[in-house]
């Protein structure tokens, strides 16, 4: 809740940051090192390279805006969380737009499906992954592609470790069933 203001406690306020501030060398190095892995992570979560690019760029812009307050050693984790949250926010916003506007905007048109370039064995897995609830997919991607621990995934997604464990188990069980069914057909 916002309350009436009182003067004299200026120390409690963050230092102001100009949105258009220059990038320092460490941030540029981070951008060059992390851009591609983050882009790949975002594609694994969205299936859409253009959307992924947008989410990743927004994550870096947000980091630049907060650079004064972020521990450089934790910046990669900040970016990863920012990308996951960015994807969620994007999907949520599109869901709201669909419900209220009843129209498909240009941002809802997916890019060409990269997965068609995969071998059939890999494509089956990716297609099965796409059917999972969003959280299960996030957990599996962070666990089996980003190779994060349960604790790291919990921190990145803002959920309990128990939820990470149960989401992973359910996701794997669902994948197992779907891939088994495909094989049986």
């Amino acid at each position, binding site marked *: *809740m*916002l*309350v*009436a*203001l*009182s*003067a*004299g*406690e*200026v120390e*409690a*306020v*963050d230092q*102001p*940051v*100009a*949105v*258009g501030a220059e990038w320092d060398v460490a941030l540029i190095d981070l951008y*060059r090192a992390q*851009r*591609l892995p983050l*882009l*790949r992570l975002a*594609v*694994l979560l969205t299936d859409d*390279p*253009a959307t992924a*690019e*947008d989410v990743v*760029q*927004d994550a870096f*812009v*947000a980091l630049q*805006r*907060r650079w004064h307050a*972020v521990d450089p050693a934790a910046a990669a984790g900040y*970016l990863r969380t920012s990308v996951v*949250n*960015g994807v969620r*926010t994007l999907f*949520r916003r599109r869901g709201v737009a669909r419900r209220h506007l009843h129209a498909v905007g*240009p*941002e809802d048109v997916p890019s060409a499906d*990269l997965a068609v*370039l*995969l*071998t059939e*064995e*890999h494509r089956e*897995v*990716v297609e099965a992954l796409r059917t999972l609830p969003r959280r299960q997919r996030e957990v*599996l991607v962070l666990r*089996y*592609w980003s190779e994060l621990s349960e604790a790291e995934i919990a921190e990145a*997604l*803002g*959920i309990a470790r128990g939820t990470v464990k149960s989401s992973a188990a359910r996701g*794997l069980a669902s*994948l*197992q069933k779907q891939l088994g069914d495909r094989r049986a057909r």
Partner: protein
Amino acid sequence: MPDELEQRLRDSLRAYADLVDAPQSDDLPTPSAAGTTPRPTVRRWRTAVLSAAAVAAVVSWSFWLVTSDDPGAESTASSAVGAAESGTALSEQPREGDSAAAAQDAAGSVLSVPASPSVGVAYAVDLHTHCGVLGLEIGGIWFAADPPLVEEGAHPPPGWDEPDQHGTVTLMSADEAVFTDDAGHEVRLRSTGEPVRPPFCE
């Protein structure tokens, strides 16, 4: 079998990720330059914000002249307009009075935006999330979250602190702001043009 599935998942995710090539452009993303990078399917709201700030400000200012009986609110709107019209969006530092005003409450726990915020300046703030992420009062005006983030039971989504989420809010123009925090959340806020906030959930 689970190990086999895990290995297959790893291999497939790696193969899928490897299809994503390194971007050809090495340009650093900025709010104003983002539109120059190849992002064809997403609206570029930021690129137009600052150039449209003066227009939006005039509209807001006119609205308040016509509708507001509250001289304090009108003054607030005018001050935000002044910041946008004077072209100070990217580099302006907060005025001394603003900094003094942006402070904690008597309990020392809740930060809010100063009465006369400047465009392009990040202010520390505690965003009230008890009923979900609904919006924030900025300069006496209610800025609504776009979209509001409300989970079932009128709570914020997982990952948000409750009842407040500490972060910063930056006024991008007279009618648009962005809240960000260390957890990586980013919420766009749009002015409702009124000092009215939604009723509390309890």
